[in-house]
């Protein structure tokens, strides 16, 4: 019995009264974040999709033109709530590129650690969210509880649970507290010990296979061409990773392979997240072991009054969702002339939504979003 063989879209073409609008989000439990699609439905099948974005638009790019170079660091993490540190690091890297400064070795390692910890927190939400959108709330409860352990470590290191504001042009703000690295290593081992539980509940669950296999496929070529990045790109078989292609922080000194999946469907994307999660744990462990002693901050003078020489730069970082890019134009003033943010979710959230959602059933929308790791604030800005 093949239920997909008949389609109601044909009827919809002939009779406009058969379609109705269904607002999927912003106030919908299946939607992650304040974002929405307006689905043009025929029965339970989606006929057309309109994007209902802008609920999180705060005008970051305008506000950043009004604040000082360092003051902007409080704004940038808010661009992606789930994964805040890549934003800080990217912004700092772009500023450092224009100023042409090199940061101390220890600061590089600390940046790597915060980046990877941030990746852990974000991937835990994504994995849990993918489970929860299929009704498997158990995994959501576990991952969120484990994520809190990473947040505890963040709080110890930086003073904030979610927004850390730890990176600063020239390095990081403070050295690690006493006993932090040992405790972090223990936490990583704990997280590793939880992996078999996640696997047996989520990735070996036959119903998950049934729901996710073949959902929302993206081919290798399409993924490269449409601007997908990060796990979504690699889940389609492209061995591309900014951490390898254009190494930043301390990634050139750490050993890791690029993980890829071949299928490019929702299951491959979910599995890709899970494997990258394991890789991030491994990278943190390596970074802790190799951590050099020394200064954590290069002296750039009075940062509060920082003036950046005229110039422009584009810096990018591999976040848990893909490429975060900051294009900064400086005119030699106390404030940036223009900061433009490239969020990783736009190709998936806008373009692939218009490609995938039509002909899909309402059942699959939430999990489709979950596996793409769509984070609304980074395209709403």
């Amino acid at each position: 019995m093949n239920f997909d063989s008949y389609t109601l879209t044909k009827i919809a073409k002939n009779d406009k009264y058969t379609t109705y609008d269904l607002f999927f989000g912003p106030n919908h439990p299946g939607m992650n974040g304040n974002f929405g699609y307006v689905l043009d439905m025929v029965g339970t099948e989606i006929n057309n999709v309109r994007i209902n974005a802008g609920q999180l638009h705060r005008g970051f790019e305008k506000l950043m033109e009004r604040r000082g170079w360092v003051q902007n660091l409080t704004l940038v993490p808010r661009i992606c709530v789930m994964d805040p540190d890549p934003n800080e690091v990217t912004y700092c890297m772009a500023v450092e590129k224009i100023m042409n400064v090199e940061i101390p070795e220890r600061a590089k390692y600390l940046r790597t650690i915060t980046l990877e910890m941030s990746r852990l927190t974000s991937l835990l939400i994504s994995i849990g969210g993918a489970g929860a959108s299929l009704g498997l709330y158990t995994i959501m409860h576990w991952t969120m509880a484990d994520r809190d352990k990473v947040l505890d470590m963040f709080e110890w290191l930086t003073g904030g649970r979610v927004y850390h504001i730890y990176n600063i042009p020239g390095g990081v703000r403070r050295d690690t507290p006493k006993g932090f690295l040992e405790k972090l290593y223990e936490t990583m081992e704990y997280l590793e010990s939880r992996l078999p539980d996640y696997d047996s509940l989520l990735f070996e669950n036959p119903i998950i296979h049934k729901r996710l296999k073949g959902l929302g496929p993206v081919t290798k070529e399409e993924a490269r061409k449409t601007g997908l990045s990060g796990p979504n790109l690699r889940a389609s078989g492209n061995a591309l990773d900014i951490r390898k292609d254009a190494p930043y922080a301390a990634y050139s000194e750490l050993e890791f392979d690029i993980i890829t999946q071949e299928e490019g469907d929702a299951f491959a994307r979910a599995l890709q997240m899970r494997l990258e999660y394991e890789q991030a744990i491994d990278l943190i462990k390596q970074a802790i072991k190799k951590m050099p002693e020394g200064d954590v901050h290069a002296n750039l003078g009075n940062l509060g009054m920082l003036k950046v020489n005229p110039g422009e730069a584009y810096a990018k970082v591999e976040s848990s969702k893909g490429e975060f890019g900051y294009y900064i134009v400086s005119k030699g003033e106390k404030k940036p002339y223009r900061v433009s943010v490239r969020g990783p979710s736009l190709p998936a959230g806008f373009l692939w939504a218009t490609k995938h959602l039509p002909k899909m059933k309402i059942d699959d929308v939430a999990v489709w979003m979950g596996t793409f790791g769509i984070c609304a604030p980074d395209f709403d800005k």
Partner: protein
Amino acid sequence: MQIINYADEERRQEDNRKLWDKVTAYFRSRSLWMLHYCTGCGAMELPPIMTSRWDIERFGIVPMATPRQADILLLTGYASTNTMKRIIRTYEQMPEPKWVIAFGSCTVNGGMYWDSYNTVNNVGEYIPIDITIAGCMPRPEAILDTMVKLMNMVKSGDAKAFQKYKDNYGYYKANQDKLFARTAPVLESASLKYVHNETEGSEQ
């Protein structure tokens, strides 16, 4: 710990409340259902309190899918103009009694987006707020404290902001109209004429 309490100021009419009111207030306070709507970045601290680590279900607080079923509306962080529209619509859909908690600094005086062209500065001008909690974003402990405080307020009958919305609808409606029902450009600008001349001719 600074908790500002207006119990004595407010002069609770404990004797005048009927027994039935007391009973319902008790049940309402023990079973507060919150709406599952993430208006801003403060929503990031909601998953931890709803899930295993802090487990707010211990107090009978569970997330609900639609405004019809919910008792509490959480304004988690800044509200952009678009969100404010949806918040007001959501608020008006909720059956009474209903309560609103405003999270984070952004809801009090604009927070870090105070000079943004698309975020509301003070949500209290558009819908009545019961409890405001500062922090960017507030810790789970602070949220739990606030929830317990709201439960106590509901039990004692202090939390009645939803009546303000009915009593002073004119005030709230005027503020809402000022925000949404704009018919002309707010700022005068000479270069405005360069904006639309080309776009109007384009096909939609």
